[in-house]
């Protein structure tokens, strides 16, 4: 044993700590064995009851402990065994044989439809997180709490704004459709809920994904169902996996009041390296009304004439310390026939960008009433109000870009309320007055009836609802009406957006159990599932305010209104047969048939099966001291997927410009829905093993999977001459293949101290197998870059999802670049222009080449937890490696000379490269603007004429390793609380994101501009920068 634990401890970077037993009056010793095989048990906890004194058995199962009286009772406990109490009496040797627990290893996990299943019986991978770990993450948005903790899951936060969306992808992207939702289904207490992200229509505002409405403090556990086998019963809607959330419930017999309060602070965790030398102007000339923020004269030179002239660190000066206050009060309890849980919570958060805030108030009540042994009724209702002011972060950062280095951005408003500016729009003034507020009122409820007329049959019915209204108001003020003002807009507008969404889910389950003989148990479940969604949206926009600063639609001269209605229904029936042979062989067969409203009537019915096998091989082999448990898993599953509503017709639409002059025009929609659309299919195979060693001190879970999604329902781009630009049809295939690894270890465990490590690693390989004959590419999205350096994310047959295309510096090929050159070979020498106005500079290749790919090579995380008496320390390090992103920030910064690398602007250099004839370049060039030292005209200079126009300068490795979370908690000893009404009190300090290692130069690379609803994750945009945060939490239980 020692041989194993010592190296492990070293590997994990921690010195081995040893526990020390405190010397007491009398020493008792003994040996602990296992009752079933008489072998000695190492690592058993031995605790002197009623005290915090304890020890742990050594490798040979021996222990030694001091006791202070003859009344002493020793408590022996060990994972997988029943605990045992032994009064010491006057004995000096106490030997015990522990009984293996009947419940051994029968961890229960919640799978589809809230079905609780023994983890042992599962033929597929699931991974569960407990309340403690979720709350430790201190993330208001539940999805962010999963970051780095779950294998096979990739979380991408859109940015650091309060309430901002976060995206979750399980086992890779499964759709070729650029607008497809590739995110899993979220299920709360058996009922699917909405996790849409509805972005703002104009300038990005960072809307929330709707799961952010959930209060993480209400959650008991969260289980991630990864593959198609795990989600087979959910069918269509869980084709991308499922996140199963179980909320807290009351326990019979004890009334508990819990108060959880935390206060947090946050700040931007990483900034680009700004240059502080050059100020406003162009060509090195000082000009304090110029548009150009930092191509001017050196600050010290201007200070000679104007002593007040100085550099302002405007980006940092704009940002503030974010604050967050989060309080949850919950009451739970009950008796044997009824239990309840009620909570009330409020979160208020101010972001690092001025005027950005978000809050969430939630009230939840759930309860369970049992009428005798046969009938249970449970129900839950959760009301949430959320929303805030979403600053135009993208526009703000863009304006900050244009704002002069030598003008104080904080001086943004005149006493009369008009904008203070030297010419350019002040970003803070814009952020303050160009508001966008959302106000979401939501209720999520469910009602369950569970009736067990006999021992072998039960019937369960559940109805769940998720209703919300999302009211949004966007205001851009017009002029105030003061002479000489610089308004944000010459007209101004107000836009009111109303979104109403309603989901209803109805589920009926009939469950039959039968034991055929001693060894074979069977359980059959038949069910029906109905999903009904209705969403409607109304927008009204009024332009040009008549009365300044009076923001009402009725106060505008032009009003335009639009409407969008959306309905979707799905009916499914399913069967689920589970056979358990002698508790070591488990076979599970499922089948589901769906009828979807979104497919043509003749194709709307589709069936898909799954089969999975779990084999606990340690049950049939000789018991081993080392391998305590081992299981192989294998599964095959298919899942169907329907279309988006209204994808099967040719329709007409009235363009936005109408009504115009009393007319309403129509045009044929450029998307053509084929009337013979059929469901798409994903088939997946999964193999895995769950291995546990040394009585679970070490566990290893390995999974390999491969899934192929075929007959995809995608809008295939077609020639516009057909009268359409996209044809929604079944085409294409995408493959995801990967491995996941979860390692758990308890390198050290004594009565007082324990050290747990969990590590997860996942690697997904994604490949576009096929698009459609004649279709070379599908564009996922693009993002603007100056001087045609726009970068496009495309799908190409044979490549992984998300190749990034853009311009690059031309490279030298002795025999000319190959015709079919597709990928930039950055190792080749640069081709330097030999003549003309470009002589001596690199040549920009205007052909689009692959510059990178937006899929990470691997992601992973490692979490260490230490418990010592009342102290708890944990830290989580996570990593995302081998991923490329387009850094739009850097593209803009280079165009405006804002970063430190542009300090070489007045240097004379010789670019390392070769001329067309292959000879080395020797031409010296000046990097500055205007007339160079040798009299040559360099016009706008190197950075504006060349550097910013080569996308390759901005498509960069966005890998990172982060100290994602570190948390130190202390639970007060009980006896301290004797005089108080509290039964438990703890204090926790948590820091998130405080160490970032990345090759990326700039803000935290972990943010992207599309928002969680989009798939173009490789574009940073001018996004809301990422933050680090610090929290203090007080948790009290009455």
């Amino acid at each position: 044993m020692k041989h194993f634990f010592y190296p492990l401890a070293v590997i994990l970077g921690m010195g081995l700590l040893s526990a020390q037993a405190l010397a007491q009056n009398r020493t008792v010793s003994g040996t602990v064995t296992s009752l079933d095989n008489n072998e000695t048990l190492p690592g058993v906890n031995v605790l002197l009851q009623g005290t915090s004194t304890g020890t742990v058995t050594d490798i040979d199962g021996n222990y030694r402990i001091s006791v202070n009286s003859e009344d002493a009772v020793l408590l022996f406990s060990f994972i997988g065994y029943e605990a045992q109490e032994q009064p010491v009496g006057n004995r000096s040797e106490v030997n015990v044989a522990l009984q293996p627990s009947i419940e051994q290893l029968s961890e229960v996990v919640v799978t589809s439809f809230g079905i609780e299943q023994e983890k042992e019986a599962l033929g597929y991978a699931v991974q569960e997180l407990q309340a403690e770990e979720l709350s430790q993450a201190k993330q208001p948005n539940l999805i962010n709490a999963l970051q780095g903790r779950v294998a096979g899951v990739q979380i991408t936060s859109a940015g650091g704004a309060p309430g901002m969306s976060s995206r979750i992808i399980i086992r890779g992207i499964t759709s070729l459709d650029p607008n497809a939702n590739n995110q899993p289904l979220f299920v709360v207490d058996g009922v699917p809920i909405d996790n849409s992200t509805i972005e703002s229509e104009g300038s990005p505002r960072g809307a929330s994904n709707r799961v952010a409405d959930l209060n993480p403090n209400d959650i008991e556990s969260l289980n991630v169902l990864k593959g198609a086998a795990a989600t087979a019963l959910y069918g269509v809607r869980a084709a991308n996996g499922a996140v199963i959330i179980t909320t807290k419930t009351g326990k019979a017999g004890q009334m508990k009041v819990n108060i959880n309060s935390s206060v947090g602070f946050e700040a931007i965790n990483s900034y680009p390296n700004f240059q502080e030398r050059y100020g406003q102007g162009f060509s090195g000339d000082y000009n304090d009304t110029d548009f150009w923020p930092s191509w001017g004269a050196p600050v010290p030179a201007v200070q000679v004439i104007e002593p007040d002239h100085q550099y302002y660190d405007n980006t940092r000066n704009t940002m503030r310390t974010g604050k967050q206050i989060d309080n949850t009060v919950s009451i739970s309890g009950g008796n044997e026939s009824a239990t309840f849980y009620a909570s009330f919570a409020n979160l208020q958060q101010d972001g690092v960008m001025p005027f950005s805030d978000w809050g969430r108030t939630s009230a939840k009540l759930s309860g369970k009433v049992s009428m005798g042994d046969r009938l249970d009724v449970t129900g839950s209702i959760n009301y949430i109000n959320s929303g805030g002011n979403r600053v135009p972060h993208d526009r703000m950062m863009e304006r900050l870009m244009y704002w002069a280095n030598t003008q104080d951005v904080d001086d943004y408003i005149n006493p009369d309320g008009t904008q203070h500016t030297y010419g350019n729009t002040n970003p803070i003034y814009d952020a303050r007055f160009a508001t966008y507020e959302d106000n979401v009122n939501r209720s999520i409820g469910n009602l369950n009836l569970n009736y067990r007329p006999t021992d072998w049959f039960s019937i369960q019915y559940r109805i769940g609802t998720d209703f919300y209204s999302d009211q949004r108001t966007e205001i851009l003020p017009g002029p105030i009406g003061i002479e000489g003002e610089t308004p944000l807009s010459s007209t101004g507008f107000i836009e009111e957006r109303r979104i109403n969404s309603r989901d209803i889910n109805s589920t009926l389950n009939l469950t039959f159990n039968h034991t055929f003989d001693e060894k074979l148990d069977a359980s059959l479940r038949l069910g029906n599932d109905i999903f009904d969604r209705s969403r409607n949206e109304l927008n009204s926009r009024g332009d040009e305010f008549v009365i300044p600063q009076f923001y009402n639609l009725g106060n505008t001269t032009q009003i335009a209104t639009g409407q969008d209605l959306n309905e979707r229904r799905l009916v499914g029936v399913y069967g689920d047969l589970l056979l358990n042979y002698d508790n070591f062989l488990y076979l599970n067969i499922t089948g589901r048939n769906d009828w979807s409203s979104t497919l043509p009537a003749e194709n709307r019915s589709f069936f898909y099966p799954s089969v999975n096998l779990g084999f606990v091989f340690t049950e049939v082999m000789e018991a081993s001291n080392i391998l305590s448990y081992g299981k192989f898993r294998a599964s095959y599953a298919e899942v169907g997927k329907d279309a988006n509503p209204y994808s099967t017709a040719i329709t007409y639409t009235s363009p936005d410009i109408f009504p115009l002059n009393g007319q309403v025009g129509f045009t044929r929609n450029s998307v053509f829905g084929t009337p013979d659309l059929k469901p798409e299919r994903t088939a997946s195979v999964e193999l895995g093993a769950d291995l546990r060693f040394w009585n679970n001190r070490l566990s290893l879970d390995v999974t390999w999977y491969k899934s192929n999604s075929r007959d995809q329902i995608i809008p295939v781009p077609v020639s516009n001459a057909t009268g359409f630009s996209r044809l929604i049809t079944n085409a294409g295939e995408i493959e995801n293949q990967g491995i996941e690894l979860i390692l758990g270890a308890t390198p050290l465990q004594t009565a007082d101290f324990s050290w747990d490590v969990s590590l997860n690693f996942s690697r997904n390989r994604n490949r576009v197998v096929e698009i459609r004959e004649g279709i070379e590419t599908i564009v996922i999205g693009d993002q603007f870059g100056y001087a045609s350096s726009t970068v496009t994310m495309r799908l190409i047959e044979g490549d992984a999802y998300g190749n990034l295309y853009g311009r690059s510096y031309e490279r030298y090929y002795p025999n000319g670049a190959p015709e079919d050159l597709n990928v930039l070979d950055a190792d080749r020498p640069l081709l330097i222009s030999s003549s003309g106005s470009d002589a001596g500079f690199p040549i920009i290749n205007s052909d689009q080449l692959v510059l990178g790919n937006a899929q990470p090579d691997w992601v992973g995380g490692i979490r260490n937890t230490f418990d010592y008496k009342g102290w708890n320390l944990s830290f989580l390090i996570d990593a995302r490696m081998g991923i490329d992103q387009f850094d739009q920030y850097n593209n803009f910064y280079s165009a405006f000379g804002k970063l430190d690398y542009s300090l070489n602007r007045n240097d004379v250099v010789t670019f390392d490269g070769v001329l067309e004839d292959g000879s080395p370049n020797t031409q010296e060039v000046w990097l500055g603007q205007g007339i160079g030292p040798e009299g040559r005209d360099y016009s706008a200079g190197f950075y504006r004429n060349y550097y910013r126009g080569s996308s390759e300068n901005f498509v960069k490795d966005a890998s990172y390793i982060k100290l994602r979370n570190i948390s130190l908690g202390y639970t007060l000893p009980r006896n301290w609380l004797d005089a108080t009404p509290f039964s438990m009190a703890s204090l926790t300090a948590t820091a998130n994101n405080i160490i970032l290692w990345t090759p990326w130069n700039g803000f935290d690379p972990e943010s992207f501009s599309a928002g969680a609803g989009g798939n173009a994750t490789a574009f940073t945009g001018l996004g809301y920068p990422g933050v680090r945060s610090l929290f203090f939490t007080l948790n009290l239980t009455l």
Partner: protein
Amino acid sequence: MKYFTNTLKTLLLVGLGIGASSCEDYLDINVDPNNPTVAPLSGLMANASFETGNNVQDLGGITSFYVQYLASPNPASSTDIQDEVAYDDTWFNMYNIMTDLSDLELQAEEAGATDYLGVAKIIKALNLGMTIDMWGDIPYNDAFFAQTLNPTYDDDEALYGEVQQLLDEGIAQLQLGTSTFTVGDDDFIFGGDIAQWLKTAHALKARYLLHLSETAQYDPQAVLAQVDQGLSSPEDDAQVDYYEEENNPWSIVAQNNADLLLGGWISEQLIEAMDGTTYGYVDPRQPLMYGTTNTGSFVGTTNGAGRGDAPEQGARSTLVEDSYYAQETAPILIFTFFEQKFIEAEAALDAGDRNRAYQAYLFGIGAHMLKIGVAETDIEAYLNSPAVAVGAANLTEALIYKEKYIAMFLHPETWVDARRYDYQYENMTLPANHNPSLNGQFIRRLVYPDSETTRNGSNVPDVSLADPLWWDQ
């Protein structure tokens, strides 16, 4: 697996006693509530007629660089230096409107709405003609109804016949006078005035017949015959008006430029053609067509060179909102009386009728000046200036082209003229940083858009920017 699947499915369905039929009604909700499956005649007409104005502007936004009305403020800007640029959006817009017009044709025919049918054919002919003049061969016979997802390309010469035929058919329909529905304000060009549509159809026939000037098919008499049935006065100008809610697209270019999203900068070529540099006298239209620098002078930007050290604002002439062309509610001119006069002048000169040509030439200049609001005394002075009033005997093709060039400011038709005239405008030179693959030749056509090469690649003709269109010989 298949057998297993089927067995499982049967068991399941029988087991639950649920058949597919029980939920059919519940699921029959996939009729799009946001978008109708049929559009009214007037709706299609409204959009197609309005968007035709936008299409003219859209094409003008490309060709204005080639004919050097405009120049980019950025050096070596792709369009400005005649680089290969795939104009996907423009291609889409042209096909989008031709598609809607094809639907309109079908529906109008079915409804016996001969006026709608006639107008639809004329507008379609115009859009088709403009599209051919940009790209040459394009899909037409396979187009508009997704008959195939890979439409083949039709020969541009054959399609020129199609343009004339559409116009003839349009005229024939309008002459029937039996329409079951009357075109009204849904027609953003003429508000349903059929007489004006008839004139426009003939005028367009004249325009596309004149395009044949470098071919053996050219018949100046045929052009003049159509001109005779064309517009009778500037009142008949085919144009689309813009509104407070929907601003003229050139005004948006001007507004954006004022907001530092740079565009609409005037080329040095045009400035010099009007400020006396090239022709020795100052054109009174300058202040009505574009803005001045901060110091009140007209300064152009050299094509392809960018603005150099000039700041974003105030040092160059650009489109400005108070000029004729870039006001919020300014019309987009589709076919004007003055264009017809210049067509007449060229055709008459080619036909040997110098007097008619000279009269038409003077009328063309005067009509344009009136159109944009030049004071009558200035018009008179200009028309009487010796370089303009050369007399019938001294009228040259060069003079007609020069005056038409100024009058047709921003109009895509000028690129057709420039190619027919082999860019022989006085002092017109290649842009700086000119696309080297053109080997010092002016651009002759557009390359096909990426949407075609990536989605319909096997049908896309292999052409280069230097290849002339069939009429450009």
